[in-house]
């Protein structure tokens, strides 16, 4: 565990100097840390506390990254990956939950985590995940934007930094992506 912070910091540095393989190596570390954090939150307290993925992502950043050693663009990189990891954790859980209801299959997340991570009441996460994958095929940037904002809790400004576009563009792209996803999930017709 002691090596995790310097490892993540190093990988972020490598990424910012153009080594794209660093990105792939970051994912499992950040993913693992987020799951671990989620599980440890659960052990610590009970019903009266709600967990925000956004807070988890921030706490993971604080734990894993030596902030003196990375450029501030690396922060956006980190949050981008964390959003992706959070998406997988939440969607895996939603799948497990759905499988559970059907009485078939086994949860890919542990019992502990299943208690911790839930589903936004108004959004079908599995359908959203699938729609996002379709969206990525025609517009990868929009897919990443939704991932960053919805699963990572990034603000418009942070998402702009991540995607290297202006906050105003983020706003416009968000409007389109939101409408498209809503249409896909609800079968909206004109």
């Amino acid at each position, binding site marked *: 565990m002691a090596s995790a912070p310097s490892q993540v910091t190093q990988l972020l540095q490598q990424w910012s100097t153009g080594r794209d393989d660093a990105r792939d190596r970051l994912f499992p570390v950040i993913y693992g840390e987020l799951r671990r954090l989620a599980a440890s939150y659960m052990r610590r307290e009970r019903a009266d506390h709600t967990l925000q993925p956004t807070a988890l992502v921030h706490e993971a950043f604080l734990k894993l990254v030596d902030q003196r050693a990375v450029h501030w663009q690396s922060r956006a990189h980190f949050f981008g990956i964390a959003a992706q990891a959070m998406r997988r954790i939440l969607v895996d859980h939603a799948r497990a939950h759905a499988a559970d209801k059907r009485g078939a299959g086994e949860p890919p997340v542990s019992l502990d985590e299943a208690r911790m991570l839930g589903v936004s009441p108004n959004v079908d996460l599995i359908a959203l995940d699938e729609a996002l994958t379709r969206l990525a095929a025609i517009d990868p940037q929009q897919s990443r934007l939704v991932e960053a904002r919805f699963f990572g809790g990034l603000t418009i400004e942070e998402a702009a930094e991540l995607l290297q576009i202006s906050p105003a563009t983020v706003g416009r792209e968000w409007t389109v992506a939101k409408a498209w*996803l809503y249409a896909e999930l609800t079968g909206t017709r004109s």
Partner: protein
Amino acid sequence: MTAAQWTRVKEVFQAAVERPLDERAAYLTGACGNDPGLRAEVDRLLAAHEQAGSFIETSATPPQTEPATRLQPGDRIGRYEISGLLGAGGMGEVYRAYDPRLGRQVAIKVVPRAFSADPDRLRRFEQEARAAAALTHPNVVAVHDLGTHEGQPYIVSEFLEGLTLRRTAAAGRLPAPKVLDYAIQICRGLTAAHDAGIVHRDLKPENLFITRDGRLKILDFGLAKLTEGQPFDRGSPATGTGTALTTPHAIVGTVGYMSPEQVSAQPVDARSDLFSAGAVLYELCSGRRAFPGNDAIEMLSAILKDEPESLPDTDVLSAGLNRLIRRCLEKSPRDRFQSARDLAFTLDTLLTITGPQPVARPHVSSRAASGPFRLIVLPFDLANPRPDDLWLATAFADSLTFGLRHAENLIIVNREQSDAAAEVRQLADTLDVRYCVKGTVQRIGEDLRVVVRLIDTITGAITLQESVTDRFSNLLAIEETLAARFVTAFEAPRAGPVPNRTSSLSAYKRVVLASELHRTGRYREAAHYLELVATQDADYADAWALLANSYARMTSPAASDDGTRQEFQRKALNAARKAAELQPSLYEAHIALALAYRGLEDVERWRMSSLKAIELNPRLAEAHVLLGQSYFASPLWGFARLRDAELARHYLERALLLDPRFGLGHNALVYHLTWDGRPAEALVAADAALAMLPDHIDILRAEAIALLRLKRVDEAERILLRLSTESAASAQDEWGFAAIDLLRGDHGQAAERFEAVIARGPRAMRALDTALIYCQAGLFPAAAEHLATARAAAPSCTSFVSQSPSFAAYLDQAPVAAILSAEG
């Protein structure tokens, strides 16, 4: 749809959305022309746009409720009454419970059904657990009883207070003498079990418990039988962990400490436990896993193939430990110690060679001088000052402090009044500062001449000297020039926006004066000045942040009454929001927000604001204190939060490492330890703090409470009397006097005084304080009355009480238990 088609859909949609409703149809007809596909898709998106509302606008959120299967306080398992959840893990939930027959607290582990579905496996588990229950050894948790509750097996064991080794060692490696101590205790426990023919099979830091008095207990003998073989059992998808191998980190906790024979599904004997013990000890010595990996497969492969990286032999003891850990970690059982007894013998030899050594907690100021440099900026000297110029001494020190804060290789230590007169050498010793900044301001007609020196406290040499002469009216420019030159000297200025300052010299002067008042705890006067500044320059973010901070300080339960508190809370939040709005990157703005949310008990925002502040500047202490407080064990600042004594301590100690003289940080630590049931440690912390900050009122106040908790009445009284001659008696002090009356047996006077203090508020917190002191005095009916008062004011306080280490010893008392179990 192709990318080109999509681009066109986006363009038309975005353009349509930006037009008023009544112009859209015409626009669309024109834009889509004779492309019905485009028109249909845009229409579909527009319809969705109108209906979508807040769809995906708030990020994915967790469930609001717990599953109903979990046992609640008051539920029964067999004859045991559940009083609360202690924890939950892969192997089930652990509850705290009361055994009315024997009148004692117990811990009950309920094993999930998933693990107990196979009757054959269940029988083997029970056999083993019964054998373990027959063990009585101080290093093995005592098992009292076994049973089945609605088809789920449960184990009743002794109730322990303390932490698992995983949590004890969470901060990294442990000193070698401590590792030796734990190693010996693990070995003794294992020897007893192995002698009885029981192999643990799942030794890991989570299963090793350190009690409050430092004794190590091995938990969960026999439980591993339930899950044995499961991670590899791909053929039976019904097992809970069947897919874990493909999921990074999912079963890491267990996998990382398995022996090679377990990994390759060979027969397992006592020597397997020695391998696992070796892996645990390796981690304690190094702070690293013996067999690291990103997922289970990598770890398993490391266990089978890799030698753990060797550890440095820094002294006789660590060399001895390293040698015997290597021997435990031999791949073949034949090459390891053959029994726990053999290992224990070797450990004992090591102990006699090196002798028992006290294990001290590192002192906050003993930080190594490497890495970022610690620096203090002292108030400037004034040459031939006019009376009106005194504030300049503070202004220059503050502006340089502020500028240098953003240099990433510096940690700025806050200055105290007394520092101005101190010798540089002395500062280096007591504060561990490497550099000291000192300057002189001289008036020459309408000009100011300012000279600033950077002194290396080790050599005493002046490393840098800068001077600027300019018109007094250009004061702000002078300060900026000096700060910029110093920041450049330390290189690596932080890439961040420059703070918005004011252009009004008189507004600036007021802020400087206010910050001096704030520094000395005169928050009300500070707020007065800052309100005036707000009317002069409403866009001065620094001033708003300091104003918010001052109001928030005035909401402290130790300092104010219920009536004024709410007003100050409101003002604090408004001012903090204003500051953050004006300048989102201002550290102080987020500190102010965290303080305001803390006062309002909005835990989520309080933590987020603290985290945001730490992100903006991880080298400053205050945000760490605020974050630590959000995990406090005490009722101060409300009951709604997630409590975690170790995390609280971690963040507070980190804050004090950054700034050993952060008075509020010390105060927080003392208060926290007191409520975490460690008043003796709280006193040690208070003494350390007072050595650094003699006469600090807040720390003295906290010390008095710790003394009362230890029933050291006379000493507490001396402190409170001294405080009451120095400042107006606060509600907290009044409460202290009442507690003294009570502990001396003057019940009538005590009751009156408590009544008055509770009325001043905050009711729940004061009533809870009072209930606890009545418990300490053995007056449980009175304690129960105060608990009822507290509950009426804040219903959530009962869950705090049932989990609080301070109340733990009194929960069985009938009147207390009755209040806690009664409906609210």
